[in-house]
């Protein structure tokens, strides 16, 4: 119970002030398109040079917590996912916002984030030594199978046609191979200088989600505002709490998926939200409502991506290996103060280590409180005329994708993908599987190549990829996931007529 002992330290005036600053700053940075949590934390590192180690880490811990949740704001209100973690949130969250339920979506997302986040931090506090072994268990062959498992999710994710979902996924996987190949350094498919560095995930995300929405607003033309006045529903926080409590399955699936996936180095943060969304959809009694502004979608996605925050730091704090890019940046924040993370961290620097963890705990609560406050203000976004909205989203998309790495090429990629995606969507393809392919492609490829290199030098490819309980467990889950999709496709065919499918499409904006 060491963490309770050091809890006082969080509440000294300076520390608490920094915690507030980190939380509010983190929410703003997180909501800025193009600024992923990793970038946001990296931007704050120079500020910590001036501070005591403990204070610096409080700032970073609070910022990490709230940037992940802040990404939900732009995802819900503008349909611009700030980072891969928030993709799944756009699917139902933005639909809710266009229906005037923006306040509800934001409240649900912050409450779910807090629940998931607290669970994740408690895992970090109580189970770190056990979890550290789990984080090491995933070698190249396991990561390869895990990526394949992610690919099997593609077909059932946010698409009314499994074939088109898979095709969207393939397009994403192909886009991911453009540029230099990560291991050999060979150039592939470089047909324009803008893609010579490969397709950066964040500008691609912005383009694929935001631009089709801008064009959809264009298609409405100059018609009168009265025709589509959306009633902005006020939503008491009490009801949001009840709603989250009622959706236990989604909350539990999101939290557990996020915690488990968050542990796996290099994969976690990016796909936790999408995998949790897909699982929640499969287990839900109302799975057909997903994608039409259903509260379970938001709850599962957001609880997952905040639950991953705590566990993602396990390998860093115990083994001194950063498991995610953000953890790597936090490592820098520790190193500049001469603190080396490792098994001795909690013995040598208990005050720093425990205060850091406590600050994430309290940060989750503060983030939730501020978030609920913002939710009330931001709900009126549905009342913004579509002409203004289109122009705002377009401007933010351009600035956001440029700022990722100060590159004009990224802006061109963003716009081209976005324009293409609009037309693809009109023909039944969807952006979520495409993005999942884009994220999983490099993970699958790099681990396959590394695994085969190790295998060729030792036991051979066959036994390397097909022995060991973890490999088989993952293979079995892959097969189960595929058969589930096939079964769903066949089962649905019996009663899904063309009209049903079209009706579902029409329900979407």
């Amino acid at each position, binding site marked *: 119970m060491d963490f309770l002992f050091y809890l006082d330290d969080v509440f000294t005036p300076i520390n608490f002030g920094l915690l507030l600053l980190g939380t509010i700053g983190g929410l703003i940075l997180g909501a800025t398109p193009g600024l992923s949590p990793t970038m946001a934390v990296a931007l704050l590192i120079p500020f910590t040079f001036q501070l005591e180690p403990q204070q610096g880490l409080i700032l970073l811990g609070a910022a990490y917590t709230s940037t992940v949740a802040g990404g939900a704001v732009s995802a819900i209100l503008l349909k611009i996912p700030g980072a891969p973690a928030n993709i799944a949130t756009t699917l139902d969250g933005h639909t809710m916002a266009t229906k005037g339920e923006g306040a509800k979506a934001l409240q649900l997302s912050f409450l779910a984030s807090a629940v998931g986040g607290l669970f994740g931090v408690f895992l970090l506090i109580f189970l770190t030594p056990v979890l550290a072994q789990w984080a090491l268990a995933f070698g190249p062959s396991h990561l390869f199978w895990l990526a394949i498992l992610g690919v099997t999710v593609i077909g059932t994710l946010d698409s009314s046609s499994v074939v088109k979902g898979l095709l969207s996924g393939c397009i994403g996987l192909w886009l991911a191979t453009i540029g230099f190949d990560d291991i050999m350094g060979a150039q592939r498919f470089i047909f324009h200088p803008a893609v010579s560095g490969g397709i950066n995930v964040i500008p691609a995300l912005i383009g694929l989600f935001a631009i089709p929405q801008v064009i959809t607003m264009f*298609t409405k033309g*100059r018609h009168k505002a009265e025709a589509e006045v959306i009633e902005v529903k006020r939503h008491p926080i009490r009801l949001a709490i009840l709603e989250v409590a009622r959706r236990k399955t989604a909350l539990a699936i999101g939290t557990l998926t996020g915690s488990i996936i968050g542990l796996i180095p290099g994969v976690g943060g990016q796909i936790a939200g999408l995998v949790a969304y897909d699982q929640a959809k499969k287990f839900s009694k109302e799975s057909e409502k997903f994608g039409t502004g259903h509260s379970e979608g938001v709850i599962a996605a957001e609880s997952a991506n905040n639950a991953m925050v705590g566990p993602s730091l396990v390998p860093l704090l115990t083994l001194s290996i950063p498991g995610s890019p953000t953890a790597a940046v936090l490592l820098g924040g520790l190193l500049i103060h001469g603190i080396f993370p490792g098994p001795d961290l909690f013995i040598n620097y208990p005050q720093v280590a425990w205060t850091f963890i406590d600050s994430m705990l309290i940060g989750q609560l503060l983030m939730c409180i501020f978030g609920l406050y913002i939710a009330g203000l931001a709900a009126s976004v549905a009342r913004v005329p579509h002409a203004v909205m289109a122009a705002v989203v*377009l401007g933010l998309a351009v*600035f956001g994708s440029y700022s990722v790495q100060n590159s004009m090429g990224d802006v061109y990629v963003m*716009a081209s993908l976005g324009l293409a995606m609009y037309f693809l969507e009109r*023909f039944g393809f969807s952006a979520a599987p495409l993005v999942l392919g884009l994220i999983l492609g490099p993970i*699958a490829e790099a681990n396959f190549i590394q695994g085969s290199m190790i295998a060729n030098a030792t036991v051979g490819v066959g036994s390397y990829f097909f022995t060991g309980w973890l490999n088989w467990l993952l293979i079995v889950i892959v097969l189960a996931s595929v058969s589930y999709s096939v079964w769903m496709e066949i089962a649905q065919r019996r009663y899904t007529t063309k009209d049903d499918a079209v*009706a579902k499409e029409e329900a979407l904006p």
Partner: protein
Amino acid sequence: MTELPRNQHILASGIIAVVGATVAYISFTQEPADAFIFPRLISSVFAVLAVWTFIKAVMGRTKVGNGVSAAAMRNMLPGLIVTVIYIFWAAKALGFYTATAIAFFVLLSLYDPAPHGQLRTWIKRVLITAGFMAVMYGLFALLLNVFTPREVFF
């Protein structure tokens, strides 16, 4: 319920099938072969699925996707043209802030339903544009220190 626009589906899936086939062709012909193992795998699946979708479209058995109606096309065209000029030319040639301000204002004027004849409408549009630009400048230039291309003014 209207019939799905079959011709549009044939055209769209045809384009995708051509892209899929091209990608597959490039993957199987480029060197070094080692670096193209994974692209070969992906592009094969890509090409097969794309051709399948194309065949389904030709047979008129596409189930999802409503295509683009003529009215929607007419409405979006001016906006699309402004967007393309803004992103692919003006942003770099005129500088980010100048180009964004102009594009923002033009889009607003094109799609804002308020009557063009009144002075009030125009003042409102200018004010909204100025407000948006102020937020962008504060956020990206002052807070995040992003140096965007600057040509005309800033």
